[in-house]
């Protein structure tokens, strides 16, 4: 499966900080100093994107209970991983609270917008090149085609010389929101790209169940929009899968005797 970059990137970046945006920004990774050593010296800021500097997090003595830590700090293109709702959650809660107190909506938004302590944490992940130092070459194609769990492919960016990158979903880090500067936003994913990103995140970080649902949806040719338990009796249950066209499929399930399933009966709408 090949991606058409036209399906993946908007012509112009979005105006708001959004999941799926690409910024030039810092990214950080903590190493054990036993794996990566660093000299106790503050290096100069990177002169160009893609540089990584290594610095000790603290002075470590043999008697320290805390381990020796080396921080690898990069200035690099990063992909915004945080969900849109998460990006401005505290801001919206604060605005809603002000409005409930009688503050006009415009003023409430202006006051909350000036509070930099709201929603300071943004998850990002560095864009990595298809380079044998980052990923074994025999894995490039399966990553590029979106089939490798734990990775998200970024096809060539038309505005950036069509260079391809990928995201390693174990390299996600947290940076302060103010480090994502609008003038350094390079690109934004389309809704197609963002949908794929959310799926890959769920697949890698939360639930293998997701892939089972996908398999089921493929088998029946529709999206499942809801699931209802219709009938449970001893070892048997009937479950209704509500599909995106409004129809339902009823599935008979044999329930494990050890599982405590609530007794509920409901008339089918089919």
């Amino acid at each position, binding site marked *: 499966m090949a991606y058409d970059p036209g399906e993946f990137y908007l012509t112009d970046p979005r105006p708001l900080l959004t999941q799926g945006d690409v910024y030039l920004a810092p990214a950080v990774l903590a190493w054990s100093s036993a794996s990566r050593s660093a000299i106790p010296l503050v290096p100069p800021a990177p002169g160009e994107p893609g540089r990584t500097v290594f*610095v000790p997090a603290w002075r470590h003595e043999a008697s320290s209970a805390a381990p020796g830590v080396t921080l690898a700090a990069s200035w690099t293109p990063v992909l915004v991983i945080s969900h849109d709702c998460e990006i*401005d959650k505290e801001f*919206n809660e604060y605005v809603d609270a002000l409005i409930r107190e009688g503050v006009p909506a415009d003023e409430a938004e202006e006051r909350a917008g000036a509070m930099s302590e709201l929603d300071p944490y943004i998850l990002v992940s560095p864009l990595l*090149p298809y380079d044998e130092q980052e990923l074994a070459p025999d894995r490039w194609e399966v990553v590029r085609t979106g089939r490798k769990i734990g990775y998200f492919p970024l096809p060539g960016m038309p505005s950036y010389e069509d260079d391809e990158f990928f995201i390693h979903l174990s390299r996600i880090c947290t940076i302060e929101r103010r480090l994502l500067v609008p003038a350094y936003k390079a690109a934004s994913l389309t809704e197609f790209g963002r949908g794929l990103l959310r799926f890959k995140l769920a697949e890698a970080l939360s639930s*293998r169940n997701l892939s089972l649902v996908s398999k089921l949806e493929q088998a029946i040719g529709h999206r499942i929009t809801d699931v209802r338990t219709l009938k449970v009796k001893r070892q048997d249950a009937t479950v209704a899968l509500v599909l995106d066209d409004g129809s339902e499929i009823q599935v008979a399930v044999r329930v494990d005797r050890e599982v405590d399933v609530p007794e509920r009966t409901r008339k089918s709408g089919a």
Partner: protein
Amino acid sequence: MDVTNRVLTIEEVKQKMKDIRAVAVHYGGVVHCGERGRDELVIVSSRRWEEVTGAARSETGARNPYGAFARALESGRLGAGGGAAERRRRIPGLAAESQMTVEEMAALGMEEERPRRRRQEL
């Protein structure tokens, strides 16, 4: 070698730094004194300095995979216009709390598959 702790004059310090730098350069090294107020003088080889600062990649002539972004910076397509923060996304009534019970959440989140092998912790 005189190792007594005596106070050096500024001129003596300057001369000693010249001597140290000359020796470092002679052996292919670099001298950085760190920040004002720090009590360490660190001398590293050029190779080590490149490792620390990430300069090694360009020095070997290897293509910088992020070159397109570097060129965008140079042209002003990226980075121009300063650092004004983006305005916030207003979503009235955004749900901040889940309506599910912890038991329901855990039941949905329980893994169906378990890894076949797990690494022993180091």
